[in-house]
């Protein structure tokens, strides 16, 4: 898998607003991206499940998983299927970030931002594959939605990983406190619906969730999100 890092995203995670870094920082970013390409082992896995509704609760009968919360209902209520997705850059990335955090913090910080951008890109690739797969079946995909977004409880993390057999397939685990390890990883759910059947759900709403790009943030309930873009609360100010 080819690694893609969007420099603009790296700048955003570093809080560089003018989109123009000083020469030293720009060079360090370049070096970090090269280093990231060497050490990263991008892996992804996904599985598709049918959806059933039980009142206001969504259930995936094939794996017996209930998906609780209003946001999940809004995302999947009009869907026939959903795809559960897991992606990771691998453990060496964490280790290298930790190494620089102890030895050259500026580089640690930048590598961390590059890796965040890279896992985001990896996620988008995986998402595109799901979309393509869905299109072949005449289905449309919603945006992706991850545990911790809105009222989708992160406690579901262990179940998602179990369903994906993620430790075995891509080396992805979660701690007891539901943090993904390797840290540069994402799990997500994408709804799949038939245009004609999605009566209560238009594309725009389906698209509101998932990837936090600027126009999406204002619709999200996570007002404390470190990546929220409608205020000045961005990562650099919130360490």
């Amino acid at each position: 898998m080819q690694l893609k890092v969007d420099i603009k995203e790296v700048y955003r995670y570093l809080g560089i607003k003018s989109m123009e870094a000083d020469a030293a920082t720009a060079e360090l970013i370049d070096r970090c991206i090269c280093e990231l390409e060497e050490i990263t082992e991008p892996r992804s896995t996904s599985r598709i499940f049918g959806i059933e509704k039980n009142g206001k609760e969504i259930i995936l009968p094939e794996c017996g998983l209930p998906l609780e919360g209003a946001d999940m209902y809004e995302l999947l209520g009009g869907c026939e299927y959903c795809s559960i997705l897991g992606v990771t850059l691998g453990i060496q990335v964490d280790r290298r970030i930790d190494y620089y955090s102890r030895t050259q913090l500026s580089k640690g910080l930048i590598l961390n931002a590059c890796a965040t951008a890279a896992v985001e890109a990896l996620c988008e690739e995986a998402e595109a594959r799901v979309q393509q797969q869905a299109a072949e079946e005449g289905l449309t995909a919603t945006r992706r939605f991850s545990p911790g977004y809105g009222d989708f409880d992160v406690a579901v993390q262990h179940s998602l990983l179990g369903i994906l057999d993620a430790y075995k397939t891509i080396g992805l685990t979660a701690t007891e406190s539901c943090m993904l390890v390797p840290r540069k990883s994402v799990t997500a759910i994408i709804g799949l619906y038939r245009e004609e059947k999605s009566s209560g759900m238009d594309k725009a709403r389906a698209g509101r969730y998932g990837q936090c790009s600027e126009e999406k943030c204002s619709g999200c309930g996570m007002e404390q999100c470190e990546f929220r873009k409608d205020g000045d609360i961005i990562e650099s100010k919130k360490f």
Partner: protein
Amino acid sequence: MNQRSFKTDSFLLFDGAMGTMLQREGIKPGELPDSYNILHPEIIEKIHRAYLEAGSDIITTNTFGANRLKLKRSGYSVEEIVKNAIRIARKAAGEKKLVALGIGPTGQLLEPSGTLRFEEAYALFADQVRAASGEEADLILIETMSDLYEVKAAILAAKENSSLPVFCTMTFQKNGRTLIGTDPLTMVNVVQSLGADALGLNCSLGPKELMPIVREITRYSRVPVLVQPNAGLPEYKNGETVFNVGAEEFTSYILQMAEYGVRLFGGCCGTTPEYIAAVRAALKDKNPAQCVPESFSAVSSASKTVKLGDSVKIIGERINPTGKKKIKEALKNNDLDYILNEAISQKEAGAHILDVNAGLPEIDERAMMVSLVKELQSLINLPLQIDSVRADVLEAAVREYNGKPIINSVNGKKEVMEEIFPIVKKYGACVIGLTLDECGIPSKAEERLEIAEKIVSEAVKYGIPKEDILIDCLVLTASAQQCEVKETVKAVAMVKEKLGVSTTLGVSNVSFGLPNRGLLNKTFLAGALAAGLDAPILNPMDQEMMDTVHAFNVLWDTDKEAKNYISLYAGMPGKTDSKEGASETGLHKIVMNGLKDEAGPKTRELLKEMGGMQIVDGHLIPALDQIGQKYEKGEIYLPQLIQAAETVKKAFEVIREKLLESGTGSLSKGKVILATVKGDIHDIGKNIVKILLQNYGFDVIDLGKDVPPEEVVKAVKAHGVRLVGLSALMTTTVKSMEDTIKALKESGAGCSIMVGGAVLNEDYASRIGADFYGRDAREAVKIAQGFFDEVK
């Protein structure tokens, strides 16, 4: 203990996949297969029987995930699952066939990547092993492991809680390493040394992809090799996972592996009784290949193995308080960062192995050694040499070491050998043997050889192979025992020739008390290397010594085509000019521009004119304030702020060094403890706070990430600290922040607490009992400044 015995001098056949078979029986994704031992024992028994009928000699219990963590949400106990699973397997196997207790990974990553501690992993595995006691399992199969650290915990748990044979397989990726980064040679070196009765690989890949890894393993393994491939690579078809290698093709690869010397076979994901039957039929009338593994001496970290004997290997000696004021200070002040930087410098200078010694009477050597080992192994991949005169320190450290370390040291004294060799054997370490005994250090080479012989033959009695022994013939000083210097060199040659073991020497002792020590050191080193010294213990930052080693490697034909030598010295007419004193730029500007390399020399220059405190208050703090303001105005961004901070840190190091030398004064504006709370592994924010606090003159004791409340309390009390900073990233870990605050308040330690983290705000912080909320690192500095001003 049981009536069934087995020999690994003939082929033995395990079973195939359990998971694949359970899927056929309708198990759902995410459903716990282990629960079938209770819910559907008849299905499990049926699968076991199918494999036995296909020709398996050994069946593996359905207990891959039967550990406390994975069973937590199931409502079943480890004991009931394990006991039931063994009974079902035994019932199917009857009296003749063998039952292996299967133990899979915990499902979590161990520290430092994850939060599961080594001893916690040990306890999880020990539970599984103990649950099997009284049941009729014939061996323990630790399988599908990716993390060598977990393997070590599992093998120790198996061996300390049962007397059954232990087999162990790891699972490799296409890049030839496990997910966590262990290569095949490292696995063999560590796992066979830990006393596994068979080792090998399973899962992840098909037999074809496994072939090169199988070759590598059979080349080195002294114990029988076990291979359980998948039925090829998984493909996703019509919503189902299918594997692309059929039974016939599978078997053809198995036969090739048998030629490499593999004796134990089985199947993993996708394999069925059909595969096992095909393998059984193909192996009929065949005998295992008689292969002699390559003899090698090597030490390993979790991801790197260093072979001794094929070229000179340098053991870095710097992490040792003897005669080193700064290391002493660092150990006393728990300043692990200083020691870690010492490790990194040695690595960058070309060390292959690092000696670690924490022997200082005024500290808890054992606790310090263990934390050093953990920190070092999380940060760098060089194998470690654990150096202590105390057996309890050695044992505690090698137990937690992730790899195969060197123990420094044993000697010819009977009681020392009796104390140390069992530790060497149990933890599968290498060991240095000093050629001295009850009568001291003999003056003649022949007598030192005699002691070396005694050490080697005694070690062999404990089951320690001689490949794992390094003999140190001991260097004496030319100023005091001039005539004995050449005896050491002679003894090295004799030990090498007569005993064929690896050799080491602490080289720089030789020049003690004489002028121009470097000249004597490098001359002696060259002589000792020529006599057969494999692994000199020296200071890798000593360029002359390193030059000698590099030159020797060319002259002794180990640096082939002088490649390394040329890469180091080509185009380098002489030594590069030192930057010492070269800077024309003022310190203020150096900081503003983040010119890290210039900060040290410039500070040294300034120290000739003014005191350290004057530099801090007159140059560093104003520059920091200015850059901080620029940051707040958005004129510069976080990376520049941090580069400036790193620059200031360099200046501080020089000033501290000066103060330590002169023994006068302190820069400290107050002591602060920082920790990322238990369960949380995201600590970049805390690290930013740390460097800025240090910049403003605060002493920071950094407890790291995933720190339990009790450790924070302990550190606060031990160091008498008044201000604690805690960080947490997620709502799930803010709970643990709250627990930590509560523990601190209840302990009566009387400290104040500031908190920070992505999901916190002023209100939330006060609700969980924090005294201060820092929205960013600059604010944390202001809080600390205000706090200590008030305290004054």
